[in-house]
């Protein structure tokens, strides 16, 4: 859609092309090259807004696919969004919104041209009456300047949301009529534009563009009217002195004069006062016309044109620099999901153990003195227990290393206890090595039991794991003792007590 940018109708086209470049085309072309576009991000934003309202979409397939790839995080987010948007039919909504924007732009341009043209013709009148030149200038320039001041104030104090009422109405036009999905495309456009600080410049571009066209149309209308009709230019006052007007015209004419517009001198201004009954000569008319056009171009068109170019440049700059802020609350959660700092590598050496637990085998013949054997105890547990005043009892252990274990085993072989009670520290962790060794020692006795010391101190998890491990290894719950009296009673009197 390459159209040469000639005024005035061309300007509209120009603008359309410009917006396409800034927002839209930039997007499509780069999808294949791997570079991210504004549209890509725009779709991502739309999907985010959708998910915020309706909950996370099912994306497990896409995510695992993306995790396997090598894309940077932002690209992963955009790719995921593209797939999801396709599924929701959001791409169409984005297209519609784009079309809406274009139509809105064209509508605004049309309004600008018509109102500018109309205003100029209306102010000049039909040439039957002399034209109040000051009034004409104020009418064509006044609203423009007033709105310019409002825009400036808005830019200074309005934050990212500012950008001019006209730009806003453009969005309203583009939004209408809109379905829910198209609404989300619009909201995403708005929100991403705000986030990237591009929105105010976009609205600013539209606002300034409108006034540019408006003033341009007015200038053209003036040219047309002044070419084909004869106007008498006068000025009048009731209470002001004529010096005010002389000075006003001179000051206002200073800048247009610099760029070659003909401007009236003092005598001509004085001569044009209505009361002076002066009739403009041909040259005077031409000078007044030139001054009028000069003021309109210099004070109406030029500032708006400069601001339009400035805003457009800013817009392009902002759009080019637009990135999803991955550390913002909006994206951080998704970014963590799509680019985790760790990944599971799976099992590299699987469990193939044929768990071979030796059986609990007792020696029914054993009838020696009952023994209590400390297997592994914490340093804070005194051994043998101080308050156990049982005379006929063998105290063994602690047996927590190889030498002591061998010594204890030797002793057990000698005495062959009728009952063997293991004392273990419930705060420690049971393990296969200890269990195996305990099971082997049981073979020297006629009955076995386990006393879990400090069972009340151990956290519930540890205690559970002891009970489970013991049970699995053949020490049934009835053979486990949680307190000293119970354990001692069994040891002294046997199981039938």
């Amino acid at each position, binding site marked *: 859609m390459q159209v040469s940018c000639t005024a005035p109708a061309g300007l509209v086209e120009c603008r359309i092309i410009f917006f396409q470049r800034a927002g839209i085309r930039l997007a499509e072309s780069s999808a294949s090259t791997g570079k991210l576009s504004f549209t890509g991000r725009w779709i991502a934003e739309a999907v985010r807004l959708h998910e915020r309202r309706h909950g996370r979409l099912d994306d497990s397939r896409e995510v695992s696919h993306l995790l396997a790839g090598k894309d940077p995080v932002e690209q992963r987010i955009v790719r995921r969004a593209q797939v999801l948007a396709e599924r929701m039919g959001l791409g169409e909504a984005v297209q519609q919104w784009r079309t809406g924007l274009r139509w809105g732009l064209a509508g605004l341009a049309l309004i600008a041209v018509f109102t500018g043209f109309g205003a100029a013709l209306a102010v000049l009148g039909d040439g039957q009456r002399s034209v109040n030149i000051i009034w004409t200038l104020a009418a064509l320039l006044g609203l423009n300047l007033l709105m310019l001041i409002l825009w400036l104030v*808005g830019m200074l104090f309005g*934050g990212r949301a*500012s950008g001019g009422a006209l730009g806003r109405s453009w969005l309203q036009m583009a939004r209408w009529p809109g379905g829910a999905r198209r609404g989300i495309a619009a909201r995403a456009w708005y929100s991403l534009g705000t986030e990237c600080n591009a929105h105010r410049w976009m609205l600013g571009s539209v606002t300034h563009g409108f006034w540019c066209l408006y003033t341009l149309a007015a200038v053209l209308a003036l040219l047309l009217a002044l070419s084909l009709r004869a106007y008498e230019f006068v000025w009048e006052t009731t209470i002001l002195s004529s010096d005010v007007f002389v000075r006003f015209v001179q000051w206002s004419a200073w800048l247009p004069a610099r760029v070659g517009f003909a401007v009236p001198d003092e005598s001509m201004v004085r001569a044009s006062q209505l009361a002076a009954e002066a009739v403009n000569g041909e040259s005077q008319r031409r000078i007044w016309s030139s001054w009028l056009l000069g003021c309109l171009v210099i004070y109406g068109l030029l500032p708006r044109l400069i601001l339009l170019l400035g805003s457009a440049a800013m817009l392009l700059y902002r759009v080019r620099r637009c990135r999803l802020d991955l550390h913002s609350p909006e994206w951080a959660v998704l970014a963590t999901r799509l680019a985790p700092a760790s990944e599971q590598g799976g099992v590299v050496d699987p469990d193939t153990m044929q768990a071979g637990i030796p059986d609990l085998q007792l020696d029914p013949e054993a009838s020696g003195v009952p023994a209590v054997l400390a297997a592994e*105890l914490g340093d804070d547990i005194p051994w043998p227990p101080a308050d156990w005043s049982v005379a006929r009892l063998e105290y063994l252990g602690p047996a927590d290393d190889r030498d002591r274990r061998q010594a204890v085993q030797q002793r057990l072989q000698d005495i062959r206890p009728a009952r063997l009670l293991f004392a273990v520290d419930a705060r420690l962790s049971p393990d296969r090595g200890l269990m195996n060794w305990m099971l082997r020692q049981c073979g020297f006795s006629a009955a076995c039991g386990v006393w879990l010391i400090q069972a009340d101190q151990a956290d519930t998890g540890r205690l559970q794991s002891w009970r489970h491990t013991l049970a699995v290894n053949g020490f049934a719950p009835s053979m486990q003792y949680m307190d000293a009296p119970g354990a001692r009673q069994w040891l002294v009197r046997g199981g039938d007590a």
Partner: protein
Amino acid sequence: MNAARAPLRIAVVGHTNTGKTSLLRTLTRDRRFGEVSFRPGTTRHVEMARLLVNGRVVLELYDTPGLEDPIALLEQMDGMKVRAAKRLDGPTRIARFLQSEWATGRFEQEAKVLRQLLQSDAAFYVIDARDPILGKYRDELELLSWCGVPLLPLLNFVADERAAEDRWRTVLARAGLHAIVRFDTVAPGQGSERLLYEKLATLIDGHRERLLALIESHEQDARHRRQAAFGLIAEMLVDVAADRATVRGRDEAVLAEAAGRLNQRVREREQQCLEALLDLYRFTREDIELHELPIREGRWENDLFDPDTLRLLGARIGGGAAFGAAGGLGVDVMFGGLTLGAGTAMGALAGGGFQTVRHYGNRLVGALGGEQQLRVRDSILQLLAWRQLQLLRALEGRGHAATAALALQGQAGIPEAVAPWKGALPVALRRARTRPEWLDEPETGGRHDAIRALQAELGAGHESERT
């Protein structure tokens, strides 16, 4: 060249049930890794996890089964040594053992550990510092040292009162291990990960750069996470501040009903924020129980609007413009939103915020027609902010290995008078107060600015608290 490219392989070894899998979970920030339980020998296989920096694998961590029978294994290997004709060094002896039938039989689990260790660049040796120094641990240490791989002992559960840190340090020093790290797998605390990797870098040559990059990347992630968390909290606060309900007439029942609806919305919004924070910190709501905070299964236990909750905050309950039933509900009644300042209207005009002006006008008209506006009180906002900040702090100090029973029992209840803001609310929230339209149009630039401002303020508050 190849060594610089290949990821660093770190085996995580230790006796059974000392927290090896927990360490993996904490280091990978992944709760789903492996299986953690109190049953000994839960991990019977070798499982791997990778740590990435900018999409590149830097570290491979291998979770191994526990060494469950070191005494018998050492005895066995000593027997093999006697049979060997000449003197053998550690790795050779380990290799011989791995080739023997024992390595596939009785000591298969131990063989997996030793095999993995031989293939690794270094190992974290996880120790439960609460355990006494038993003979089996000495034997274990000897077996591990035979592998000839740098060992970095990690003292787990050092915060426990039973922890015998000094004695463990002595034993480790006698075994030639002097670089030791305290690392609580359940509540690692800030900076302990950095210490861990820095110590590791001193043990193995030539990987310092990569480990420093890993540290840097993790710390940067943590900073960004925190920023995002402040943003989530700020967004929630702005939404709640902007929310309001409109009632017609002064009927108490109608008022109470409207206040109830408003309160419900606030509760839901807070819950939403809580879930987003859990998501951000990679915790899930099913398996989190924060004992330090009254949260169970990802839900706050005590109600936001419960007078006792408010009293705990030291917040005023009576007074203000509230009256009647609304008084107990943490809601203020305003008459037609007339608290709106003229400044807001001017600012709205200047910013082109005609929406705001329209709302303002509507409210003015409503006020003349006897409408009242309910909004959430300042004290509720304070409480919300405080609760979420507390949650954030708890999540930051929490390892991904934490399960209910392992969690450190913090003090119950809430200390008094902890309002995050003394006196007036921040400007951003006061602004939000006057903008109910932000709820309907969340993309408004003003809301965005307010959230960012509040986010920055929360961040600054956090920084000043730390220093």
